[in-house]
């Protein structure tokens, strides 16, 4: 017994609480369970572990690069600042978690419990009415990180295992229920494409599909469709994430550092001397954010592709015919290519207006536009909105979504205190649904968690109640569903 305990102790100290090796171990185990040859399992272990170590360097780099700017903002204007972007959010959550002395490994444990719980909800779908399995690996990592910090923040006394179990159930419920909410809208958009959205803005997609027809038909005048307009070609350079991120960072940090001025930056950042060019310091500093983001994504890509493949393998083996919930970008092929650009453009406009509002009304937290929410959320909303309500709906909804992203993000970064580490998750559901969940958890503790899980589980029941006869057909046999709906 003592021998076993010492093995467990060794395992816990060196693998379970060291995220890099834990991730590698999980991938190794996954390959063995999927009966892959041992050398492939070994390769998977190496790639996942190296990927995680790369991510670690980049997350640290993002936070360190940001630190002097945050300090200067604090010093001069008593302001905090956060980039609303899930990668910045993940880095900030990791920094916050490690700052209170907890292991970031719990993020991976939460992820596994949540994925398992999503599977269980689908296995019992006759009872739960949940039709979708969330398999978007990198999103699962980001959300586990942010949600883990929220739970540590709301329940500082809770034991680690309790925390992992509780959050696993909560997050798994959110994954299952929110992606299930997009089934009808996505099937309609893709004419039975056979997938749902499993990303960061499922409640937003649902909302869009409900309000877009109304906006598209205001006063009985039907809106133009996106197909009828032509956009200037230069806008497509922003489809390139490196260009878009670099430009956004340069714009925001350029303005911020110019206002802070060379003297203050020189006293706070020892990498800058007043006699060297301030312009090129700003250029280098701003683009360094793009550098660490690119590295972070490389790391995430390396370990997540291993995870996603095994998730897909597990869910198709355990639940043949279940509907996968995947990255929102899978919907882009079904929209007009202009939709992606229009969404980005008007979402960015909404965000800029809201950020100006924060400055004018002296908000204690400044928000900086990050690439992922402004691009992916709003492009997705524009694709769905155009389908249901034309160009007008696409413009109005993405503009409003941009405002919501900034105001919700500012509230969350301040309330959950990730602004001290310069980031917040920032995608639509994390500026709306999740801050509400967080407030309930903080104030009502376990009762709050209970309310949230029950309320979430009630959503698919309501959906089912509204369309009992054809609810499951929407996912399983779209042609039959469509025929029934058109009657």
């Amino acid at each position: 017994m003592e021998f076993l305990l010492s093995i467990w102790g060794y395992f816990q100290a060196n693998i379970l609480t060291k995220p890099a090796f834990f991730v590698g171990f999980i991938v190794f185990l996954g390959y063995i369970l999927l009966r892959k040859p041992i050398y492939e399992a070994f390769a998977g272990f190496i790639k996942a572990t190296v990927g995680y170590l790369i991510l670690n360097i980049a997350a640290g780099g993002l936070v360190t690069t940001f630190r002097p700017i945050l300090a200067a903002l604090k010093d001069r204007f008593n302001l905090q600042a956060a980039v609303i972007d899930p990668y910045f959010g993940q880095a900030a959550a990791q920094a916050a978690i490690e700052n209170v002395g907890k292991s970031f490994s719990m993020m991976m444990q939460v992820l596994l419990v949540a994925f398992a719980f999503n599977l269980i909800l689908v296995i019992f779908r006759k009872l739960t009415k949940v039709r979708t399995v969330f398999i978007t690996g990198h999103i699962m990592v980001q959300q586990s990180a942010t949600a883990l910090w929220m739970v540590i923040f709301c329940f500082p006394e809770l034991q680690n295992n309790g925390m992992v179990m509780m959050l696993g159930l909560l997050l798994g419920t959110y994954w299952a229920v929110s992606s299930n909410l997009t089934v009808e809208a996505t099937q309609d958009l893709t004419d039975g494409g056979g997938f749902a959205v499993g990303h960061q803005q499922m409640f937003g997609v649902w909302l869009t599909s409900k309000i877009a027809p109304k906006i598209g038909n205001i006063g009985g005048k039907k809106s133009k469709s996106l197909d009828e307009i032509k956009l200037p070609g230069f806008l497509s350079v922003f489809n390139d994430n490196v260009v878009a991120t670099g430009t956004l960072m340069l714009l925001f940090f350029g303005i911020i550092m110019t206002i802070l001025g060379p003297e203050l930056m020189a006293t706070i950042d020892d990498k800058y001397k007043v006699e060297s060019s301030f312009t090129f310091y700003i250029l280098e500093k701003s683009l360094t954010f793009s550098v660490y983001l690119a590295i972070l994504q490389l790391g995430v890509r390396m370990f997540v592709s291993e995870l996603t493949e095994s998730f897909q393998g597990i869910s198709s083996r355990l639940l043949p015919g279940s509907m996968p919930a995947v990255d929102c970008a899978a919907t882009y092929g079904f929209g007009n290519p202009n939709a992606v650009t229009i969404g980005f453009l008007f979402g960015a406009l909404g965000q800029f207006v809201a950020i100006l509002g924060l400055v004018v009304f002296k908000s204690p937290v400044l928000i900086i536009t990050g690439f992922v929410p402004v691009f992916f959320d709003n492009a997705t909303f524009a694709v769905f909105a155009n389908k249901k309500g034309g160009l007008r709906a696409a413009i109005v909804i993405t503009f409003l979504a941009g405002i919501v992203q900034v105001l919700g993000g500012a509230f969350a970064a301040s309330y959950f205190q990730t602004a001290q580490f310069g980031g917040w998750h920032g995608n639509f559901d994390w500026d709306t649904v999740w801050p509400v969940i967080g407030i309930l958890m903080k104030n009502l503790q376990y009762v709050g968690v209970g309310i949230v899980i029950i309320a979430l589980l009630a959503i698919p029941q309501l959906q089912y109640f509204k369309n009992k006869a054809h609810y499951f057909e929407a996912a399983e046999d779209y042609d039959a569903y469509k025929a029934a709906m058109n009657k």
Partner: protein
Amino acid sequence: MLRVIAACGNGMGSSQIIKMKIEKVFKKLNIDVKIEHTSIGIAKNQAPSYDVVFCSESFISTFDSAAARGTIIVPLKNLLSEQEIEEKIVKYIVNKEA
């Protein structure tokens, strides 16, 4: 062996799905491939040194210059449809080489 790159906005989610799906279809068609996945931005620079690029129809214009230099660009509408992928592999790759 065919060198293939799957691309999407950030090179994280959908390109991974494209990769898994085309891997399966290429295997079924007995075509030997090496597939990598990445973002549109990086793929744009790397495309000329690959044989084939798969991406969503909405990003197709990014690869005009690579297409001009002989890389085959395969636009996908439904990234998850193995049927569509198979038809397009046959149309763009198998028939082109024949």
